[in-house]
């Protein structure tokens, strides 16, 4: 059977890559600490020696559009190109290419559909910074095959938070039951409170530090029930107009189960709070 060796839930900050490359005398004051925290977080993946990465993210209106918008989609392709012209333009993100693991993609699609998720699929998916950012942070050598899983946190009507948790729980079951003898890591990225294109954007902190503090507690403690009791599609408008990206964290809580994170860290930046969580479902020595 496959072994789920690590579950990583993190924010994806598109400016990390560019910031991390700045010479110290040109870097903003928060850069050194940010890089240190990311490098430390990277070790939580590195030391578990994964063979394949299941990557949870959300297309930001790059390939998926309103004429045909899936709620949940799994890529099944031998390769995935990454990043788009407007991500190079705005964030300085380079283009890159991933290998895919089609066997795992096919398995997750077949079994996922049979367990109640009518998953869309793509045989030619160009992934965006929701998938590439965690590669830059936790696997910069980009040497492992991936299975991209996209969720719709962006174009309402959206699935409800409970559905994200359930998909995470289903992915966990399926990976645990996958007959291949491979070490799997699941890496998902989302947001805490976030405002984009609204009056509260780009403030000195995330738009709702109180929500961020509660969210960090829910995630770090594996408090799925507490999170679900306090988070609805409507309530997520209040902390910031892009906070529905928090539902990708909720999906990752579903993958991790009712367990405290083995690693939890965060960093209060302008505009948003960065957060880094890892679970070792089969122990740190697996």
């Amino acid at each position, binding site marked *: 059977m496959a072994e789920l060796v690590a579950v990583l839930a993190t924010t994806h900050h598109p400016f990390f890559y560019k910031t991390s490359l700045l010479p110290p005398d040109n870097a903003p004051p928060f850069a050194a600490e940010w890089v240190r925290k990311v490098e430390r977080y990277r070790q939580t993946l590195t030391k578990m020696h994964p063979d394949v990465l299941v990557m949870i993210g959300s297309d*930001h209106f790059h390939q998926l559009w309103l004429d045909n918008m899936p709620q949940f989609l799994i890529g099944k392709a031998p390769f995935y190109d990454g990043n788009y012209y407007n991500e190079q333009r705005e964030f300085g993100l380079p283009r890159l290419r991933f290998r895919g693991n089609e066997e795992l993609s096919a398995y997750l699609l077949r079994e996922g559909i049979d367990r109640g998720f009518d998953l869309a699929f793509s045989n030619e998916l160009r992934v965006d910074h929701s998938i590439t950012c965690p590669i830059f942070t936790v696997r910069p050598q980009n040497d492992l095959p991936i299975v991209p899983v996209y969720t719709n946190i962006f*174009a*309402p009507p959206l699935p409800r938070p409970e559905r994200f948790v359930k998909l995470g729980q289903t992915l966990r079951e399926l990976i645990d039951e996958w007959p291949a003898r491979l070490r799997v890591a699941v890496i998902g990225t989302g947001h805490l409170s976030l405002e984009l294109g609204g009056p509260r954007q780009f403030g000195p902190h995330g738009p709702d530090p109180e929500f961020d503090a509660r969210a960090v507690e829910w995630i770090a403690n594996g408090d799925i029930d507490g999170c679900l009791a306090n988070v609805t599609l409507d309530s997520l408008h*209040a902390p910031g107009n892009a906070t529905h990206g928090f539902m990708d964290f909720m999906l990752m809580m579903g993958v991790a189960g009712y367990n405290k994170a083995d690693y939890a860290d965060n960093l209060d930046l302008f505009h948003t709070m960065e957060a880094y969580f890892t679970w070792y479902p089969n122990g740190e020595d697996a």
Partner: protein
Amino acid sequence: MLNKFLFTVDRDPQLVERYREDPVATLAWWEAERANQILNCHGGEASTWLSFTDDERRALGSHDHVALFELGAHPFLTLTLWIAMFERDFDQPLAMQLDYAARLAHFTLPYPDITT
């Protein structure tokens, strides 16, 4: 329709510049030539019914991001395109984004609905 305009302009470097320099003419061209293209369909099978309202035409034609917000344009699309077009006009980092936010300061929750 607002979103479709913002989306298709933002992904095309030449259109970004064209819209920045001459919004009214670019908008008129786009409405006539591009509005009814189904993006994931071949060119012979266009839609037949898409056009802007007067309010939408006015907001896009005057680069009025506040009106676009009011009309329910997706804020991520508007912001991304505005950064591409106007960040270069500001001297300080994030000055454009903070000015953009300040002009929206009179909006309180709930914001205009962006559901399509």
